[in-house]
């Protein structure tokens, strides 16, 4: 005992030092104190010591350390504890917790955790009554009058729930996850309902308390509400035996749906249950924490489904109860703090309950929809105020998103067929529109002068920010087109006239101007979403059928000729009622485009934001409506075909109009980088179609664009924009059936000539470094990249003939400009694009030429970068980016080879052509050039690191035999990085590296050791490394499996070494008991496995290794 007291004295002193203010102790003293506690945590069999510390020390921090030690000791030494010791410990813990007053929260929680862990371990070991007994004890505590004991009871209950709910902590308590899962299953059917019933009982009493509720009672109610929330968010679904990584996936779901088994019927299927929580929310909605818990419980109850329902009648009845509560809930204006929770309840109810059953409550559903409409309108207004006040908190906006996505489901689910939603929808559409327009038409809150500084690069623009909202508004609008189309058209026309007036009076930049611009910006966005379903990746966007139906329904009133006449005079306001309403809406946008172009040409300053919205509209609208592929439709509107169809004159006229608008943007908005990028992207999308591309070539605007491009007008565009522009022009030409060569000559010859000039011009050799010359060259390189970006199957032959001879020139430029990082990077981009877009179309011989060009630039790059020391602060970042690009390039080629997209150069080389470069040569020589530059510092960049290791792993996988024959120095470097990869970086990188090692080891086994000695020397040390990692380090669960897969073939290759390592590890243990346990664990690891790395044994080993790790980690790896 004396020893313990002495230790306590020492620990108390250390605690004082450790917690002393910074000015009183030195950092060495603090470290020494910290060391004392670190050592303490490693104490073996510390139970008596812990008791002394817990009972006698007056220093709370020492008590906390003792509790932590107790926790790790229970986990570590569980198997060594006798039944009596365990029972003694549990009773001690409970007694300690109940008898001590004035305990600090952090000490109490730590002790509660130890108790919970002990109970769970006993339960796992087969003690069926332990949970029942503790629950009895806890309910007594909670029913007592003493607040301290009540709090304690709740704490233990919460801790128990956490311990039983999760199995991802498996390694933390030394149990394999199957054990966790079994315990969880048993617990959730036998004990969880009882705990829930108990919560209901307490909460029921709470719901009858008279207001105002005392603070103490509130505290307890809060505790029980969060217990109920914990139970209602219990992950019942997850009951299958799944691989560990999937377990993680399931368990990280934040609130899974409530899907308990049949056993829960009696507990949950009572009207009183939902009623209680609705009532509690009602009572406590003004209270932030309690209201929050209550609404979360309601949310979970809204999701109830699964086998708990015996039949549909059950289910229908339950939905009826929930309906009642939710109706009541949303008939009141929600408190701001819980507005998200309230909308979520509605969303969950409609999402998780089967529509057919919901639709059976037709009256309730109708009133529900009515109230949801009112709620939605309220949210639209509040969100708009929130936006205007520039608040950071976006509760209303988030709720609005939520409720609108619910509407989207309602609008598209035919099961709601009998319900008339049109009325609600038009109401919401109108309110939304008004909320975004300035008075008098709208109600948008007046913003004082808008002088915010908006960071364009970091702040999302409205088109992105409100995309989801607008998508639903568009969807709703299409349900009532006869109302919405004329409404939006009229507003657009009126605002355009207003803008015209402001421009003429030169009121640009005034408050009025901003207001009209803002209105137009929103109207354009709404019009765009109304006419198109928005871009869906991988699908052809079509004209929505509702639009076609609407146009057709108007045919009687519409005169096609009048419509065409109106379209041909976009500057004239439409007054003729026989013009098709959809065409009239498009015309309103085109009129705005025209007005903007004219203003720009007159050097008036328009709003760039409106300019971007217009480009956005064109980007969305043109691919769908302009020259559509009629074969895709079963039904089309005559008037739309007459105005925008392939064979219509008007369609071509509109195409030229759009191209001209984009051209004007490029020439006149030169100072708005974002708008230029959008414009180029729009152009590229517009031209990337057989029909539009080939027709566009005949438009004067395209000729003008080609002419301007060729004389360097667009030199100042950003790289991405320029590449899009050139790619667009290239794609357009590819669609031509005849005169293709002529068009390309016009487009490409100036580029070719400029490159030739670089080679021959003496002045260039002299002046190449001058800024103006450099910019010209940079422009050439970027345009060439754009050309390569545009290579497709239909133009590849022509373009390859153009591009190939220029590649060595680009290599020469990289050499010449090696001291200019921007030039180097631009040159690399050319090859990156070649690898990405062109190599698949190359002939065998050409492949080899391209590969040697790639190797030339890598060599040139490496020559100038290896071993270079520079004081340029941006050099490291530039190097990182270049290496990332070069590795991506190699990886792209390799991937295409794996997929079989490339001609087989190697085989051809064997056949008849000497000196051909194969993909394998490219990979190895590329590595050889790049490895010396790839320093550990550079590998700290996560994306480069992951790229490199995955690349090396793939190279190893593809060319292992050849890799074994590489020069020793290169192999040593590669394996050196692999070693770092295993130990130093992220789990993803460690996995790739381990996979690499596993591949080699398996290969060595299968080739019966027939590999060069150097390979053995390099592979063998990984056996020790991985073994030690697995035993002594807290191995990330994500890499455990891969560590096992690498370890097994290594053990097969080097059985003797393995034996030695095992023996030395066992004998290194000082404790005899540990020695024996470790030796047993090792023998269990291999007892069912044959040392042959075939599939069967690999799988057996995987399971054995998993068990081995959790067995051994508990006593070797002190956490």
């Amino acid at each position: 005992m004396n020893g313990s007291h002495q230790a306590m004295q020492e620990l108390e002193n250390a605690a004082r030092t450790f917690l002393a203010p910074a000015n009183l102790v030195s950092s060495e003293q603090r470290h020494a104190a910290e060391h004392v506690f670190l050592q303490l945590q490693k104490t073996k069999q510390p139970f008596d010591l812990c008791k002394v510390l817990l009972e006698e020390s007056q220093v709370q921090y020492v008590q906390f350390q003792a509790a932590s030690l107790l926790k790790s000791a229970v986990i570590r030494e569980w198997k060594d504890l006798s039944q009596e010791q365990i029972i003694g410990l549990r009773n001690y813990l409970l007694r300690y917790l109940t008898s001590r007053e004035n305990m600090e929260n952090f000490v109490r929680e730590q002790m509660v955790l130890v108790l919970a862990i002990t109970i769970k371990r006993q339960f796992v070991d087969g003690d069926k009554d332990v949970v029942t007994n503790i629950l009895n004890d806890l309910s007594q505590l909670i029913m007592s009058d003493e607040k301290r004991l009540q709090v304690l009871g709740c704490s233990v209950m919460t801790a128990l729930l956490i311990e039983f709910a999760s199995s991802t902590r498996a390694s933390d308590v030394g149990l394999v996850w199957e054990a966790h899962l079994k315990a969880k299953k048993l617990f959730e059917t036998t004990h969880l309902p009882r705990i829930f019933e108990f919560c209901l009982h307490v909460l029921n009493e709470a719901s009858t308390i008279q207001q105002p509720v005392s603070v103490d009672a509130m505290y307890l109610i809060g505790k029980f509400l969060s217990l109920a929330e914990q139970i209602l968010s219990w992950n019942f679904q997850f009951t299958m035996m799944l691989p560990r990584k999937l377990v993680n996936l399931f368990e990280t779901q934040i609130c899974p749906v409530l899907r308990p088994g049949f056993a829960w019927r009696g507990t949950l299927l009572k009207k009183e249950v939902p009623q209680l929580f609705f009532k509690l929310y009602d009572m406590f909605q003004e209270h932030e924490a309690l209201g929050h818990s209550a609404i979360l419980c309601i949310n979970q109850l809204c999701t109830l489904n699964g086998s708990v329902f015996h039949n549909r009648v059950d289910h229908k009845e339950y939905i009826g109860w929930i309906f009642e509560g939710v109706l009541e809930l949303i008939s009141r204006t929600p408190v701001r703090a819980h507005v998200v929770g309230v909308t979520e309840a509605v969303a969950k109810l409609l999402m998780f309950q089967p529509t057919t059953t919901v639709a059976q409550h037709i009256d309730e559903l109708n009133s529900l929809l009515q109230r949801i409409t009112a709620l939605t309108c309220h949210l639209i207004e509040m969100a708009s105020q929130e936006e205007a006040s520039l608040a950071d908190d976006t509760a209303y906006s988030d709720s609005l998103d939520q409720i609108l996505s619910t509407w989207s489901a309602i609008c598209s689910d035919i099961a709601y067929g009998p319900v008339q939603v049109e009325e609600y929808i038009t109401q919401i559409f109108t309110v939304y529109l008004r909320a975004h327009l300035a008075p008098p038409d709208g109600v948008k809150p007046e913003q004082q002068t808008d002088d915010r500084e908006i960071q364009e690069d970091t702040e999302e623009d409205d088109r992105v920010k409100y995309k989801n909202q607008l998508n639903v508004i568009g969807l709703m609008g299409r349900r009532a087109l006869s109302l919405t189309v004329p409404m939006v058209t009229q507003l657009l026309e009126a605002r355009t006239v207003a803008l015209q007036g402001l421009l003429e009076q030169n009121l640009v930049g005034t408050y009025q101007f901003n207001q009209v611009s803002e209105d137009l910006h929103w109207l354009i966005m709404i019009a765009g979403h109304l006419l198109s379903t928005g871009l869906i990746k991988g699908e052809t966007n079509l004209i929505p059928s509702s639009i076609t139906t609407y146009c057709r329904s108007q045919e009687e009133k519409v005169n096609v000729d009048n419509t065409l006449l109106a379209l041909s005079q976009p500057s004239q306001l439409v007054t003729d009622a026989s013009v098709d309403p959809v065409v009239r809406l498009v015309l309103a946008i085109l009129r705005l485009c025209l007005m903007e172009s004219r203003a720009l040409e007159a050097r008036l300053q328009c709003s760039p934001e409106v300019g971007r919205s217009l480009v956005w509209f064109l980007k969305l609208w043109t691919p769908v409506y302009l020259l559509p592929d009629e074969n895709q439709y079963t039904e089309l509107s005559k008037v739309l075909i007459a105005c925008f169809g392939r064979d219509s004159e008007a369609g071509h006229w509109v195409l030229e109009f759009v191209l001209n608008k984009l051209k004007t943007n490029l020439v006149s908005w030169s100072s708005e980088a974002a708008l230029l990028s959008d414009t180029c992207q729009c152009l590229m999308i517009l031209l990337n179609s057989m029909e539009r591309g080939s027709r566009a070539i005949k438009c004067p605007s395209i000729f003008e664009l080609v002419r301007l491009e060729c004389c360097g007008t667009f030199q100042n565009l950003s790289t991405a924009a320029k590449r899009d522009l050139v790619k667009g022009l290239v794609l357009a030409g590819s669609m031509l059936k005849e005169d293709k060569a002529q068009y390309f000559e016009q487009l490409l010859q100036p580029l070719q000539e400029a490159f030739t000039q670089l080679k021959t011009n003496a002045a260039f050799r002299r002046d190449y470094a001058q800024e103006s010359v450099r910019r010209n060259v940079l422009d050439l390189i970027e345009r060439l990249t754009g050309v390569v970006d545009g290579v497709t199957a239909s133009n590849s032959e022509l373009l390859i003939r153009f591009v190939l001879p220029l590649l060595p020139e680009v290599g020469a430029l990289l050499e010449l400009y090696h001291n200019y990082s921007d030039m180097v990077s631009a040159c690399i981009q050319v090859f990156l694009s070649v690898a990405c877009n062109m190599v698949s179309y190359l002939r065998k011989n050409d492949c080899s030429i391209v590969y040697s060009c790639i190797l030339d630039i890598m060599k040139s790059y490496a020559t100038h970068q290896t071993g270079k020391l520079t004081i340029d602060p941006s050099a490291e970042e530039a190097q990182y980016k270049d290496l990332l690009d070069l590795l991506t390039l190699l990886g792209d080629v390799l991937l295409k080879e794996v997929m079989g997209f490339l001609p087989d150069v190697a085989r051809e080389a064997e056949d008849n052509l000497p000196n051909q470069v194969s993909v394998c040569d490219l990979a190895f020589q590329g590595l050889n050039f790049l490895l010396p530059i790839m320093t550990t510092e550079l590998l700290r960049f996560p994306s480069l690191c992951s790229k490199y290791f995955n690349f090396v792993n793939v190279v190893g996988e593809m060319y292992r035999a050849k890799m074994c024959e590489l020069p020793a120095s290169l192999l040593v470097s590669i394996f050196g990085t692999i070693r770092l990869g295993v130990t130093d970086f992220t789990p993803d990188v460690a996995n790739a590296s381990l996979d690499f090692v596993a591949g080699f080891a398996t290969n060595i086994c299968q080739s019966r050791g027939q590999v060069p000695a150097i390979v053995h020397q390099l592979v063998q040390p990984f056996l020790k490394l991985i073994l030690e990692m697995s035993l002594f380090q807290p191995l990330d669960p994500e890499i455990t499996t891969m560590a096992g897969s690498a370890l097994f073939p290594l053990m097969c290759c080097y059985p003797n070494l393995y034996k030695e390592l095992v023996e030395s590890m066992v004998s290194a243990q000082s404790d005899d008991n540990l020695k024996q346990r470790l030796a047993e664990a090792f023998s269990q690891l291999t007892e069912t496995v044959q040392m042959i790395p075939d599939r069967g044994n690999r799988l057996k080993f995987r399971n054995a290794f998993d068990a081995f790790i959790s067995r051994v980690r508990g006593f070797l790896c002190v956490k």
Partner: protein
Amino acid sequence: MEGEEVDFNSAVSGASETYPMQCSALRKNGFVMLKSRPCKIVEMTTSKTGKHGHAKVHLVGIDIFNSKKYEDLCPSTHNIDVPNVNRNDFQLIDISDDGFVSLMDDKGEIRDDLRIPADEELAKKMREEFEKGEGTVIITVLSAVKEEAIIACKNTN
């Protein structure tokens, strides 16, 4: 706004120290004159005043000679001066006791008017590589607006 035909003859040898460029055409990692000092652009962001305002460019540059940081904010339509920056490689021939170095360019012409750099690590590397006597020691000299400095060193070996 239409550009001119590309003509590499137009740049006259010994061209001006700076030349003007529209702000929006600048790029990250390019060069710019900030507070009359030649800088490398390390950060370039655009912002606007109000949703319907016009773009402004915010530039952060590092002086290429003394690594001091400068910032500027200007409307993207404005012109700004860009320095002509040269980076030439020389072979290191000698390091004299008084801290000057002898360098030879690719035409065999020798100059010895440059001091060993103030950066200790770089100076140390230059001395070490030179004393090794193996391979060729290549020095990169940065020059702009009448100023020059050694910024990098590597051994071709």
